């Protein structure tokens, strides 16, 4: 566990690393050791970010990507968790579906993007579907494994108190699945963002992935770096949000790591 006094120290150290990277990068370009064409330059990227933020362009594209990611994440997670419980509840369904589910789960899901673009168009729906197709299976499997891994001794001890199955589900099975579900959610959040961006890079008119593809097409290195920085900030933001939520819901487990 971190002590209170080290909090400032932590951030000072981290900012120093950032300053060092920026200084070296900027320095290499200014001295001509690196070419602006290939690696851009921190000052140019910051200026571009400022300019597009002021005009609102970047906010619009970011909004599209965020909507796709969040919608795909939420829909996929809810459906996946419910399906996971259903599969754990009905043994027959699990036996019948397992090979197919594992087959789709093992498939690199971004490979479905061309199909989804054909089916759902180049707009937002195809990206949401792509995100769902990833998130759904992760939550399905994590929830299913969570239910299977419930401590039998806990179940038995509550059973000997005369508890009906409903009580056991609510007070023992559900809470013990929550860590599994959370670990699924944490992975899914990052992959939902990946799905949206990949979908946008393939075929779209809006979104950060679209900006990235367009910048690449015009050899605009500065534009590429700008989008990468926004994506990194988005990913860190959502990760921390999940970590905070997890800490609140799983406080009985002790500390969880966060960036």
């Amino acid at each position, binding site marked *: 566990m971190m002590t209170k006094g080290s909090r400032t120290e932590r951030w000072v150290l981290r900012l120093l690393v950032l300053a060092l990277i920026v200084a070296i990068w900027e320095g290499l370009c200014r001295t001509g050791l690196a070419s602006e064409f290939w690696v851009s330059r921190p000052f140019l990227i910051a200026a571009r970010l400022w300019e597009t933020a002021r005009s609102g362009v970047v906010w619009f594209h970011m909004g599209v990507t965020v909507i796709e990611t969040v919608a795909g994440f939420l829909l996929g997670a809810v459906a996946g968790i419910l399906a996971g419980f259903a599969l754990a509840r009905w043994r027959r369904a699990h036996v019948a579906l397992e090979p197919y589910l594992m087959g789709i789960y093992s498939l690199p899901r971004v490979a479905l993007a061309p199909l989804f673009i054909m089916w759902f168009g180049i707009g937002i729906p195809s990206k949401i579907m792509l995100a769902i197709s990833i998130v759904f299976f992760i939550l399905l499997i994590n929830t299913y494994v969570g239910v299977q891994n419930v401590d039998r*001794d806990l179940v038995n001890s509550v059973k000997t108190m005369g508890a009906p199955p409903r009580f056991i589900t609510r007070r023992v099975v559900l809470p013990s699945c929550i860590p599994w579900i959370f670990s699924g959610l944490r992975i899914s959040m990052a992959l939902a963002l990946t799905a949206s961006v990949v979908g946008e890079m393939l075929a779209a008119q809006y979104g950060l992935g679209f900006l990235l593809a367009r910048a690449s097409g015009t050899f605009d290195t500065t534009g590429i770096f700008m989008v990468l920085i926004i994506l990194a900030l988005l990913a860190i933001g959502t990760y921390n949000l999940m970590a905070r939520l997890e800490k609140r819901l799983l406080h009985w*487990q002790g500390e969880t790591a966060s960036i």
Partner: protein
Amino acid sequence: MPQKVSVSGLSIAFGATRALDRVSLTVNDGEFVSIVGPSGCGKSTMLNVIAGLLPPAEGSTQVAGMGSNGAGSRIGYMFQKDTLLPWATALENVCLPMDVKGSRDSDKARALMQLVDLTGFEAHYPNQLSGGMRKRVQLARLLAQDPEVLLMDEPFGALDAQTRLIIQEEFLKIWERQRKTVLFVTHDLQEAIALSDRVVLISARPGRIKATYTVDLPRPRHVEAVLAHPRFMTLFQEIWASLKQEVLAARERPA
């Protein structure tokens, strides 16, 4: 005296291995009976059958005149392993059996926490408590359930020797006030004699009742005083001589 637990002709098999072989046993109301025997003789399995967690291969068990499936909350079961809900505080865990019955009484739970000497730890989660404290919370939870029969499966086995002695003493004190029927499985012969009215010795596999010993030490007892009592010494030597044979026999047989 009315019978609280009766086991008649009980056999249990794991695949081809016969764990218990036609065991019959009765425990009277308010009696404290311990079961000792070599590991793998089916002691714990017998408790699981009585609790209705496992079906018997042959024979039947009754608790308070009812078959095990209907026994429900008449039975309080304490496992060797920690079975506190890790996501619930100590107080919530003590309240759990009352929640099952649909009548939570937080004041009663607090009083039980006080009885097991854990006032001030109500809001702690199990992973914030020591092994001995978790055991005491389980004891409080067992008492909150207020069952007619306590089934205890090596409940203090995982504790270090010093903590075990203290918990045994506390448990004995509480039990002598309440006098509930107890069926207590242990591998610790000293513990069995110090706590029980009767000690039942089960043989190596297939487990049969080899002998029953009445512990005629006066109550109320104090564990450390009992351990120095001359009668305790003779009983210990007598039972150990017989138990030792079974432990050695179990060692020679493949598991």
